[in-house]
Structures are given as C-alpha cells and as structure tokens.
C-alpha cells in the first residue's frame, strides 16, 4: 500500500499522471490533479509510482 502526496499548487494540469495511471489520478473541473484513491493498493503501486515520476513539475510524491 502506498500513499500519494499531492501539492496541488504546483500542478499545471498537463495530465500525464492521469494518462499513466487513470485508476489513481484524475483532473478536477479546474484542470488540477486529484487522487482518486486515498491509499493505493499494491497491484497499482508500481503504476502509481511511474505516474508520479512522469509529473513534470514535481507535484506528486510517494509517501509512506
């Protein structure tokens, strides 16, 4: 189980996280990232980590 930390103020709404892991990330009505699952289950954790690396502005981090 991993936990995603989001800094919404940095998000520019490029949507790469959503493309890489649509089960975990979405964009809200203002085009800002939202995390769809509070705790990411193990089978998605690798995908979620890849998605956080794809964020160009470092708005996403894997927490514990």
């Amino acid at each position, binding site marked *: 189980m991993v936990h995603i930390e989001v800094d919404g103020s940095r998000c520019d709404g490029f*949507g*790469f996280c959503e493309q890489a892991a649509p089960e975990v990330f979405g964009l809200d009505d203002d085009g800002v990232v939202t995390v769809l699952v509070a705790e990411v289950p193990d089978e998605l954790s690798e995908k979620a980590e890849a998605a956080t690396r794809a964020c160009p502005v*470092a708005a996403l981090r894997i927490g514990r």
Partner: protein
Amino acid sequence: MTTTTPLTSDLDLFSDEALTDPYPHYKALRDLGPAVHLTRHGLWFISRYEQVRSALGDWETFSSGRGIGLNDGFNDAWGSALINMDPPAQTEQRKLFTDRLSPRALRPVAADIDRRADQLAADLVTRGSFDAVTDLAQDLPVHVIMDLIGWPTEGRDQLLDMAAGWFDSAGPACPRTAASVPKVEALMGYLAEVVAKENLVPGGFGWTLLEAHKAGQIPVEGAIGLLAGYVVAAFDTTISTISSSMWLFARHPEQWDLLRSEPSLVPAAFNEIVRIESPIQVFSRTTTREVDLGEGAVIPAGARVLHSYGAANRDERHFPDPDRFDIRRNPVDHLGFGYGNHACAGQGLARLETHAVLKALAARVQRIELTGEPVRALNNITRGFQSLPVRIH
C-alpha cells in the same frame, strides 16, 4: 575551499565541432564524474540523469535567480524574466503563461492546429521535394503562437533569426555569443515598436499584456519581456523537434513503418524525439551552498553550474542503449522540457503541434528520404537544423 581535487576538463563544449556532435563529449564527461569543472569557461557541468533531475527539482540549492544564461550581460538584461526568477515571484509570473498554455486553455485551438497540419502535409505531398526546416518545421510553430499572441501577419518571418540570436546570447563569452547581440537588439526594438503602436489583435495574449501595462500593472519593459518570452521560447524549440523528427525517421525507415502501422504511438514518438535530440541542450543555475555530489565532486557555493538536458537524456545509467532511436521506448520521464518549478510551460502547445504534424504525415507518407546534406544550425543553447532537404512519397 575543499581538499578534494576537483574533476576538470579543458573541453570547449561551444566549439563548432562540439556543437555539431556533442554526444561523444557528453559521454566522456558523464563517465568522468557526477560534476566536472570546465576550466575553459569557468563553469561546472552536470550531465548524468539523476544529478540533473535532482538539481532541477531543488531550486533552493540550484537557483535560477542569478540567471540561467552563461554570461553576466544576458543574466542582467533578463533579470526580471520568468526563467531567471526563483519562487515565490516566479510562481506568480508563471501563472501568466500556464493560464494561457495549459492543455485545457489550448483545447479550443487544437482542431485548428490539426487542420493546419493536414493542409500543410497535403501540400507537401503534392510538392514531393522540399526543405523540411523552412517549408515544414517552421510553419506551425510560427503561425500558431503568433495567432495566439495576436501578432500582425506581416513581419513574422523576421522574428525567426532574431529569436535564434536570443538563445545564442545566453552562451559563454565567445564570438558566437558576441555576434548575437545585434539580433537581440533588433528583437527588442521590433517588439517595442509593435507594443508602442498597439499593433496587436484584441483578445490575444499580446493584447492582454498591453491592457495590463495600460492599467499600470506592469511596466512597458515587463510587457515587452513577456512578449519576448512567448516568441523565443516557442520558435526554435518546436521547429527543432519537427525538423529532428524528419531527420530521424528518414534515417530509421523501420521506425516510420512502425508509426504508420500504429498511429497511437505518436505521443511516444514525440517523447523519444525530444529525448534523443533535445532541442534545448543546456542552461545553468547558481549554487546557493556547497554541494557534494559524491565521487569527489564538490561544487562550491556561488558556482555557475551548467546542466545538460541533452546529456542527461542520453545517460546510459537511466536509459538503456540511449543512442538508439526507438519510438516504443516512450521515455515519459525524459528531461527535454526540464523538470520542477521551471519545467516548460509551453509543452502542451509543442505537443499539440508536433503530434498534429506527425499524424498528418503518417496518414499520407510511406517514405521520408534525405536528398542532400543536412546543415546544422549551430547555437550555444539549442540543437537543430538550418536546412534539411527531403523527398516524401
């Protein structure tokens, strides 16, 4: 001062020879250590993926506030530009760009971009032979951003040479940098003239800046500087990406076949092109404290550190077989657009334009062939072509 011997090299990364083919030099410098002192220009150089990515993600240590160019003249002249600022001021000014350039804001122009790319591709197929730089790559980057700014149609082409000069002017003290000064002056003069005559279409980005200036929110230099930001950042970068894609696919026909058979690979191909031929090769930061990168590489406080997007994107420590062009690789974490608080604000637009061109060509063209020697556009900061004669059929 430290007791460790710094890792040094007397290589000139800005000679014609090195700019023509920098990759063997990058590899040698990557292998030498995590940071190398370039004695000729008095600069530090970081070129491995992990170090470049970490530096870009840590503005408190690797600051843009003293400029990201390699000479004081450039850094002083552009001190109040977005690229040369640190948060919190940078965060505020960046919104002026991201509000206009976010994928959501660009959605209304996406269909126009696709239409323009389709028309262009159809015309070029009819012509058969042409120059992939002037006849293909320059079209969308120039006209799309100029329409968004609301720039008059006449005079757009003049800006191309001036914008390339702007990138050169960020280089180290050398003849190429000195030669660019008149071009930058011409650019500023031209922008100032358009602003003074209010020769901008109402509703465009340019008009918004003009209104902000008239309302007393920004000084006239601020408006001109922001306008310059749009113009220079959007031109050579995207032109280089489209030119390089033609060059790469001409030399790797099997990759073109793959793209044609699977057009859904267009976004992955775009990422791979920006990785392997990074349009912006280097910029710099200044250290705010001593930084120990290991292996004896200790960068002192207050040092100017060149970080190479181009070298990091070819780092075999991160990308297996990095010199191989492979559109299936889909390197989503490449550093061609930078990373962190200064990550390219216009990448959504660059993506729309390049995707549109690749899609339009893949639907019509079986083969891209070089019909003459490509000529590189040697520039201190960018990597691209001056001319690229091709035939498509």
